[in-house]
Structure formats: C-alpha cells, structure tokens
C-alpha cells in the first residue's frame, strides 16, 4: 500500500528524513513511532504530496507520489497533525465543504456519507454550533470523521488520538480496529507507545530521520525466556526453583524458564501457592527506547 525507497528530505542544512525505506502492506495496522522531531510528520506529509522529497521515491496504492496525487489521494483519508476546520462554520458544514472541494465526493450521497462519518466517530448528535465552540476532543473526532467521509482504502493518521480522553482513545481504537477488519489499511504515526501497542500489528521506528526498526510487533515481542511469578510464599518458591530466580521483589519473582507450563507444575507440586504466572515479553517501550536516542526537544550535555 505504501512503499518508500531511500527517501530523503532536506530543509536547508537539516536532514529531516534520511534514506527511509518503509513498507506498509495491505491490511496492516502500521504504527510509525519515534521521538518528537524524528521526522514522522515530514514523512507523512511526503506521502500525501504536501512536502516534496529531496531524493528517493514514494509509491502509494501502487502509484508514484507526488506525480499521481490526484489519482491516489481520493482513496486516502488523512489526519495531518492537528485537525483543522473553518471555525465559524459548523462541523457538518465543514465536512460537506471539504467533500465538495475535491473529486470522488458525489453530491447525491454527500449528506448521508457525512452523517455516517459523524456517527462513526461519535458526533452524530452535533448541532449547528460552530467548530470554534468545540472542545479539543470534538475537533479531533471531527478531523477523523473528515478522513472517513469517502470510505477510504487507506487511512494515514498523524497522532489521531491527541487530545482525547481515555474513553475517546478507546472509542477511536475500537473504530480503527473495526475499519481494519473491514479491509481498511491503517498507517498511523504516534509517540504514544501504549496506543500503538494496543492497536498496531506492525511498527516502524524513526530516530533522527532514520528508520531504525521495522517489523511485526508480534515477532518483536517474542517471549524473553523468563516468567513472572507472583506467590504468597516466595521463600518456598525460591527454595524450590533454586538458581532459576533472577530477581525477587517482595512476592514477585522473575524466573528463568522457557516452559511456563512445566514451571507451574513444579511449583504446584512443591506446594507453592501461585497467585499469577505470566510469560515475560519485551514491552514496546523497551523495544523503542533501545533503538532511539533523545528527541529533538531534549538538550543534554553534548557527549
């Protein structure tokens, strides 16, 4: 759905994106991660033909960008950094206006499509109040609705849950997972790791403009060979598992063991009351922090 090859963008002397080759496949829920200033937004803008690459190539839906933006963009819905709307007009009017501005927005179905998109994002009941009076969360939902009006094959979302409360974040996540199940490919950029971890199937990580990691989330999160055990009798557990316990924190133990079932059987046999037993996986946070440096908003002492 999206392929970039050796994509580079320089603004003056600053290389915002350096030699990035990403690959988003049909049906993916792809999360682009990276600290502030790592080039996520510049990359997203290049995919949409807003910023022109210095070198390298982009293909979206099989067509070269920016040459064929006119053919590709009608099938894409996007949220680009913050949502934006004409503040003196109502949300509904804004959506209709944007729909009327470009191709593939049939006037006959416009009213219905706009109403459906508003319903999808939980704004079905908005009245004629101008967008100026909307809360940040409502604007974010409106921006997402604008992306959905033409039922796109591909959603490109830059920080789509910014400004939403916890319920809003979950609503949008459920909506995106539902759309993805119906065949929409989702590409989102974020620095909210829990969000990406709960939503995405595949991730790419940018750091200082370079792609430092790209893989299926599941394979990045293979079991580490350790099991987290919680028990009311940690003394007996440590005695039983002599030498396998790597770390002990009160009633919680980190145990080296490739086979959680066997470990559980052994503990139960020894009469250790096991309260919980979980296979340890690397968190997305560990994965990302491992491969990235400090963000552009942090100024430490030069090394």
């Amino acid at each position: 759905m999206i392929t970039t090859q050796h994509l580079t963008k320089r603004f003056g002397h600053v290389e915002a994106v350096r030699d990035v080759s990403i690959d988003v496949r049909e049906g993916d829920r792809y999360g682009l991660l990276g600290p502030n200033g790592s080039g996520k937004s510049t990359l997203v803008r290049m995919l949409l033909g807003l910023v022109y690459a210095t070198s390298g190539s982009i293909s979206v839906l099989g067509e070269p960008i920016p040459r064929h933006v006119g053919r590709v963009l009608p099938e894409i819905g996007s949220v680009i950094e913050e949502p934006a709307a004409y503040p003196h007009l109502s949300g509904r009017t804004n959506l209709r206006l944007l729909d009327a501005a470009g191709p593939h927005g049939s006037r006959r179905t416009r009213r219905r499509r706009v109403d459906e998109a508003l319903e999808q994002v939980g704004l079905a009941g908005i009245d004629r109040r101008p967008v100026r009076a909307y809360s940040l969360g409502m604007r974010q939902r409106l921006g997402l609705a604008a992306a959905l009006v033409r039922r796109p094959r591909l959603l490109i979302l830059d920080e789509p849950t910014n400004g939403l409360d916890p319920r809003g974040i979950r609503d949008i996540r459920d909506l995106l997972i539902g759309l993805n199940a119906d065949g929409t490919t989702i590409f989102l950029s974020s620095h909210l790791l829990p969000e990406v971890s709960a939503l995405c199937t595949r991730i790419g990580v940018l750091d200082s403009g370079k792609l430092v990691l790209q893989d299926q989330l599941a394979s990045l999160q293979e079991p580490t060979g350790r099991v987290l055990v919680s028990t009311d009798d940690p003394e007996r557990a440590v005695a039983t598992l002599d030498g396998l316990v790597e770390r002990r924190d009160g009633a919680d133990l980190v145990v080296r063991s490739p086979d959680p079932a066997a470990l559980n059987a052994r503990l139960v046999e020894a009469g250790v009351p096991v309260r919980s037993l979980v296979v340890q996986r690397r968190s997305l946070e560990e994965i990302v922090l491992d491969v990235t440096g400090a963000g552009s908003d942090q100024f430490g002492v030069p090394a």
Partner: protein
Amino acid sequence: MIAVELFKLVRRLRTWVSVALICLLPLVVAIFIAVTHIAPAPGSGSAFLSAVLNEGQLYPAAALALVLPVFLPVAVAVVAGDSIAGEASTGTLRYLLARPVGRTKLLVAKLIAVITFAVLAVVAVTVTSYATGVLILGPSRAAAVGTAPGGLSGSIAPGAGGAPTAGLQPGGAVTSLSGTPLTTLELIERVLGAMAFITVSMLGVAAIALFLSTITDSAIGAAMGSLAALVISEILVTLNAASVVQPYLPTRYWLAWIDFFRQPIFWRDIQRGFAIQAVYVIVFLAAAWANFATRDITT
C-alpha cells in the same frame, strides 16, 4: 472548487462588514453635503463631488471616486492576502491539498473569489450611493447654477440645458464632463463602464496580494505588503522625477474611469489602464503559481 470558495466568501462575516464599511463612507459624505449644502468647489476635492448637489444621480460616480484610493484596495488586499496565507495558518490548506485540490485549481478559485468580492463591493457602492444620491441629495436640478468646465480633476459642468431624457428623474439630464448632456441610457452605460474599470483596477492589487499570500503564512503580512506596493505606486505617480516608470505603475491609470464621463468617451487611458492591470495579473499570478506549485506545505 470555485463554488466552495464562493461559499466560503459569502459565509464570512468579514466580507459583509467590509462591504458595509465601504458603502458607509459615501453615505456619511452625502449626509454632510446634504445638511450643509457645502460641496467642494469645482476642480477641488474628490472627483464629481462638486456636482452632486445639483445632480444626485451622479453620486455613484462620486462615491466610487471616494472609495477608490483607500477603502476598496484595502478591502481587496485583505481578502486576497488572506486567501492562501489564512488557510495555511488555520491548517485547512493541508487538508484541502490532501483532499486533493490541485494547487493551480486552488489559486484560480481563490482569484475568482477575490474578483467576486471586488465586483460585490463596487456594485454595492454603486447601488447604495445611487439611492443615497437620489434620496438625500435629490435628483438632478439642472436649474442650479454651476460654473467651471470639467477638468481631469473631475468636476461636472452642471445644467448645460439638457435635451429631454426619457425615464429620468424629474429635473433633466446629467451632463458629461465635456459639457454635453448624457441620456439616461448613456449614463447607465458609463456607470457600468466605470464599475468594470474600477473592478479591473483592483485586480493588480489582488494579484500582488495573492502572490505574497503564497510566500508567507501571515495573512496580515501579505495584505500589508501589497498595500505598501500600492502606496509606493501612488506616491511615484505624483512624483515628476519618477516619470520614467510612471506608465508601468499599477495605480497610474486608476483615475482613467473618469474618462467614461466625457462625450465622447476618451478611450486611450482606459485602454492603457486595462492593459497594465492585465500585465500585473499575468506576472503576479505566474509568480504565485510558480511559488505555490513547488512549495513544501509545512503548516
């Protein structure tokens, strides 16, 4: 896209406030003149103003002369300067372009919206000032004594014993600057001609403001920049030392619409005025297009 831009134009309060302000100025002037009966002496003051006490129907011409130097170009510069820069600073520009709206198409739609605004303002001034002229200053009073033949400064020689004109307000015919009477039909034609010329005169400013609007993300900056260009032009037009560049200045032929009120119409400066505006529009639109089509949209 053009329909979308026109919709945005008419749904903005600013459009109507500025049109109302432009219409208000001639009304205020008319009230002062009607109350005091002191019109500027022929040959001094704003064009046509000396004649309106006698010929209320000429007030649209006087009103256009009042709003032309400042009010109208300021309003046009604000609307044109806002067209791209305003969308960029609110962030709606990126959504329009990602919709997608072609960049050339967007520029053309914006220009058409600005022209529509200029037409709207000129028509509103003409209509309201005609009503003002007839209602406040009264219809043509050919009997009133007037002197002074019209000069380039634009006063009207009133009451040159007009031929009867059908359908005109009671009182008689309006007189041309050349002293001969104008029939109602001729007057309408000439007012329409002047309206067209003044609208076109605004296109040069509009094109400069539109160009600046593609360079900066500050709508105010683009409007001020184009107004600065106008002020410089208006100063140079009156400066003898600058006579070399005068024929090419955007405001050089701004007053040529007065020639529509001569008998017969004096076409030379009118044609030059149209031509110079066409050149400014072509040059600055091309520059706007060249800049906008290749620009990175980072706002």
